[in-house]
């Protein structure tokens, strides 16, 4: 499955790019599985996702939990807890 990934704040800095297009294997079905798969792609990804419990995710501009299915997603974003306001 092909989709766009976007990274923000220190997740973006650790991975070293703001966005990318990826092809995921069929074994990756949820946001949590996607994080685990990304973490195996290299040192920079392993560093970004070393503590997946603190990483937040959004699918197509909506907050989602790690058990959310990625099927049909156009854009998935990963970022640290938000600190706006």
């Amino acid at each position, binding site marked *: 499955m092909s989709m766009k990934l*976007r990274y*923000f704040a220190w997740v973006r800095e650790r991975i070293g790019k703001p966005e990318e297009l990826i092809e995921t294997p069929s074994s990756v079905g949820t946001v949590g599985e996607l994080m685990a798969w990304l973490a195996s792609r290299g040192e920079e990804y392993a560093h970004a996702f070393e503590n997946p419990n603190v990483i937040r995710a*959004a699918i197509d*501009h909506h907050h989602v939990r790690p058990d959310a299915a990625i099927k049909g997603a156009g854009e998935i974003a990963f*970022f*640290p*807890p938000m*600190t*706006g306001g």
Partner: protein
Amino acid sequence: MKATVRLQREPFDAAAEVAKLTRGRTDVGAVVTFTGICRGSEHDEPIAALTLEHYPGMAEAEIERHVAEAVGRWPLLGVTVVHRHGRIVPGEDIVLVVTTSTHRDAAFAAAEFLMDYLKTRAPFWKQVETTSGKTWVDAKTADDDAAARWKAPRRGREAVE
């Protein structure tokens, strides 16, 4: 009901935003404004500036969802949210929330609700610039607790933190 959500780099004029919701009307009995300002220190260390990163598209959508929720919960006549991004120096404004209603209760409650959710749910990230470098601000548990006070029953796919 007049609702405005705006993200911008430029400073805003709080008085002008209030006037847009009140001028020429006689039904507004209460206006509440909240302005968040960049402090000159973080953990007792002086800071040179804050840089706010945001997720374009989602930031607007997320704030609009919370404005819609506020409008559904309280009898509001108007809501304006302006959030700045980019580099902001101490003393400058960061965020503005204006709520208007017939009576004060709704205006106060809605403004506080919107700020609590902006802090924890709107995709913005603050980076602090000091003489020793740049560091990302850690999320505060107190902000999560503040947002949790308003928690409504879960709906749809959206996760409630």
